């Protein structure tokens, strides 16, 4: 464990100054993984007949808008796109979770890895919920 000391020196060098700025960088870090789970879930939803073409387009537009909101550190838009508060939008969390399950069902990942991915979705959701809104 002592060999990890220099690694954690680097970890401790990452400082968060303000709560409102603390969450967007790790959200940006986690986004590619969460996005991959979302896309997998949407693809599987179409394959399984849960989603039609039009619904898929709406979800993909939400993903695009969410990515933009995270990049621009727009707390209001980030929360709106993730939770699906705009008319016609849906909460994205269930499709991310569906994507993880699909990876387990297809044998791409085991249940243990799925637990890590689901934990990330949960933390991602919690971080967005904690974003201070002006």
């Amino acid at each position, binding site marked *: 464990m002592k060999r990890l000391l220099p690694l954690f020196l680097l970890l*401790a*060098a990452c400082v968060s100054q303000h709560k409102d700025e603390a969450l967007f960088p790790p959200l940006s870090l*986690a986004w590619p993984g969460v996005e991959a789970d979302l896309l997998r879930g949407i693809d599987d939803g179409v394959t399984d007949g849960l989603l039609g073409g039009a619904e898929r387009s709406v979800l993909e537009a939400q993903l695009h808008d969410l990515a933009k909101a995270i990049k621009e550190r727009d707390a209001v838009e980030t929360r709106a796109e993730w939770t699906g508060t705009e008319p016609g939008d849906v909460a994205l969390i269930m499709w991310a979770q569906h994507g993880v399950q699909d990876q387990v069902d297809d044998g791409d990942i085991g249940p243990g890895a799925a637990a890590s991915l689901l934990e990330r979705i949960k933390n991602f959701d919690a971080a967005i919920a904690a974003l201070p809104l002006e």
Partner: protein
Amino acid sequence: MSDTANEFLAILKDALDETGLELEESLEDVAQYASERADHLATIVDDPGFLQAVRAERDNVALKAGLEIADDMDAIDRQILGLIQGALAFAAKLLAA
């Protein structure tokens, strides 16, 4: 607190004492959480998706700790993230041994 968590905590305390910096969340909470995630990774070292899980746990620790990592990461930032990721995987394999 487990032995692993205590070791993570000692390392983090040493690091913060030297730099004088602070984390968004309490030091004990970050150390405990990192320890728990390393313990989990140790149970899935040989399972499908282990590397994806390590990346997910890196993100989990960052989200929990409220780490500030620049969006426009330069080469050094990417190295830091790689090292955090490596530390988790290394700790997991040590625990699994």
